[in-house]
């Protein structure tokens, strides 16, 4: 069995690094470009800034990795994040309890996730349509309950953004914790295994006697709940809940996941790739900000980043 030898040599712990996605090269190119072209890019303050901006994106992109592995998609993430943000701000203002506020935000996200998951898994509706519809519902609700205004919370949560521990800002700690949790979910729990199986061969799961719906719904619920949790960071950073604060955030999340090497086919997922993708998107946005490029152009640039990364992968023949 000659093939065995070649397989085993490539399949060791460094697998995720060995199969560096095209986006890693794109990231290196971006870093070099901004380091020379954008003033203040390479300062400690700016690195913390990128991290702070990327935490929210990471919290959306990590669960999106699992959703995409199931050959699904969650278009509602940005709107659910906005809605959870204003709910969080309202509860915080009314009760003064950050924990209660966080609970409410996660609850809102969870409810949307469960509804998405049930519609997709039990009724078999297409994920794109289902989550596009719930995106509309969430966005509308966010505008209705706030009358379109921001809800100012002041500096109550600013420790989450500005505080630091052992030399790293809270944002970075939160990002690491989130990544750690998802690493365990992906590689040490059934949820992660089955996300790959739902996309790669659902029939196999069925023949293994697994309750597929339970896990399928669970993955969408996780996505919604993560958006609810991300609302905490977003609201803290803005010192307010705004009904359209996260407009289009799902675009960044999906882009980060795709450039990271996760595929809409065969249940292929790359959590580490998603991390790299998030950093690339974060660096791109930050660098363009420093160069005073408008946010509309930034979206176009992220689109180009996706295409360039896919082209690089194509050249390497990994897709």
């Amino acid at each position, binding site marked *: 069995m000659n093939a065995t030898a070649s*397989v085993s040599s490539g399949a060791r712990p460094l697998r995720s690094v060995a199969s560096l996605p095209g986006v890693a090269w794109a990231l290196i190119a971006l870093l070099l470009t901004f380091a020379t072209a954008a003033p203040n890019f390479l300062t400690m303050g700016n690195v913390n800034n990128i991290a702070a901006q990327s935490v929210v994106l990471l919290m959306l992109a990590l669960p999106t990795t699992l959703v995409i592995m199931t050959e699904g998609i969650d278009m509602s993430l940005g709107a659910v994040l906005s809605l959870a943000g204003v709910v969080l701000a309202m509860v915080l203002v009314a009760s003064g309890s950050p924990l209660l506020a966080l609970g409410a935000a996660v609850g809102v996200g969870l409810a949307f996730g469960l509804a998405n998951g049930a519609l997709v898994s039990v009724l078999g509706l297409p994920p794109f349509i289902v989550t596009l519809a719930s995106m509309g519902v969430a966005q509308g609700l966010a505008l209705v309950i706030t009358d379109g205004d921001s809800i100012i919370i002041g500096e109550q949560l600013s420790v989450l953004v500005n505080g630091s521990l052992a030399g790293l800002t809270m944002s970075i700690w939160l990002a690491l914790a989130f990544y750690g949790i998802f690493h365990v979910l992906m590689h*040490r729990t059934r949820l992660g*295994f089955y996300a790959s199986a739902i996309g790669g061969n659902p029939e*196999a799961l069925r*023949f293994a*006697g697994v309750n597929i719906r339970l896990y399928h719904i669970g993955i969408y619920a996780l996505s919604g709940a993560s958006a609810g949790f991300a609302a905490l960071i977003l609201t803290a950073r803005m010192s307010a809940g705004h009904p359209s604060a996260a407009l289009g955030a799902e675009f960044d999340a999906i882009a980060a996941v795709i450039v990271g090497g996760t595929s809409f086919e065969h249940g292929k997922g790359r959590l580490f790739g998603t991390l790299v993708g998030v950093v690339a998107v974060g660096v791109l946005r930050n660098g363009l900000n420093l160069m005073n490029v408008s946010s509309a152009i930034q979206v176009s640039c992220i689109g180009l980043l996706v295409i360039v990364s896919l082209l690089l992968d194509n050249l390497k023949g990994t897709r």
Partner: protein
Amino acid sequence: MQKNNIGDKAAGSTPQPLLQLRGIGKSFPGVHALKDVSLDVYPGEVHMLLGENGAGKSTLMKVLCGAYRADKGDILSSGKAIDVSSISAVRALGVAVIFQEFSLVPHLSVAQNIFLGREPKGSIPGTVDVRGMRRAALEALRALQLDIDPDAPVHALSLAQQQMVEIAKATSQQTRVLVMDEPTAALSERESARLFELIKQLKAAGVAIIYISHRMTEVFELGDRITVLRDGNRVASVLRGEATPDMLVQMMVGRTVDMTYPRHFADKPGDVLLRVEGLTASNGIRDIDLMVRAGEIVGLAGLAGSGRTEVARAIFGADRVLSGTVRLHGRLVSGGPEQARSAGVALIPESRKTQGVALLRSVSENLNLASLGRTFANGIYRPGVAREVAQQLIARLRIATPSPEQMVKLLSGGNQQKIVIGKWLQADAKLFIFDEPTRGVDVGAKSEIFALLDQLVAAGKGVLMISSELPEIIHVCDRAYVMRERKIAGHLERSELNEQNVMRLAIGATAMEEATI
């Protein structure tokens, strides 16, 4: 007496059947897939299941593994009726099934796949004991003397290795009955030999194996007991020593079909229309030589998966040709479907609804679809002209439609098939390749379709017809090629065309007889 025969293998007293199927019946809308099938499975025995396309083998397996629910009949284990209503219930009985489409998840590791759905629990609640799982997977692989890395993602393995992982998956749990559906279909000879060794090991360990096969050599190399199915019935179960290839072929053929075949055979065929030489293509077919003359219906027979559709696709240029030539009227055809079409080749694919007609468009639009450039040379579509063309074809082919504007979806299968044929007639095709032309149409429409084929060849066209229905090949074709394992296994002239001869070639019985003589 039979029991004694097996007793010495099964170590111990009189062997009881591990599993008994009694009078299993299963119907689907329009199809009576299984009528009355009984089967005994003994420990340490390989039970071969033979039958031509549509005999009911796969349905039987799906009933056995709980994927389908039988309409009638019982399954007994140690003499007691058992519950096979769900996959997990069957699993608990120790029955594992390996289907042709593997039940592996491509981007999970070998270990994750082996333990899919029964992952060992880790020390932290909710987690999986990944190390323990890896260790257990390694043990399962070693027990089968397999050198496969448990951490390798399954998609990186060869087909043969994937097949072995499937078996490890089955043997790592308490499997008493292992069901395999054509396990060697995708394997090379060496890989098959490895699989057979494995099967012999399992046999020695007392596992009962049900093995569906299309290859006569395997049946005699591995089988202890052979059951032949036909038309959803069990024809016979025999021990290997009692069987000959010829006898098994006799039992497989002879499906009852009540219909007449309107065919007028011409006295002498016309000029050579299509000549294929040494055709090898990226889809796996090798060294195909065949020829179709004007005025002939030539059959392309063989069992499912033998490469018939692939030959059609390669001739049409839909799959990449690696070597060999396709000539129409002596002129080379190469470069893809566009060129094949303009040379006069029409491919009428098997899945009519997805590849043959545009279901939501009108009869008229469909009939004009392949000849737009010819009918409307200036590039402007004129509905009136299209309608005229359509009306002529509707009359000529007797398509039953209220009007040319009727949506094709609303017509019967037979009429849809006529529309596909009409479309190519209008495109002035000379060679028609039909892939299962009568699939999904009722008996009356079948007869009409064959009348149409007869008309086509009477008008000097040539037809190459792929069919899984032996009677169609026998009664409709002037000559037939029979495929086996992606090659032409043989050619039969009209005088030699009968079900036994076709089946012998398809299943490889002739090769074996020659080898043994």
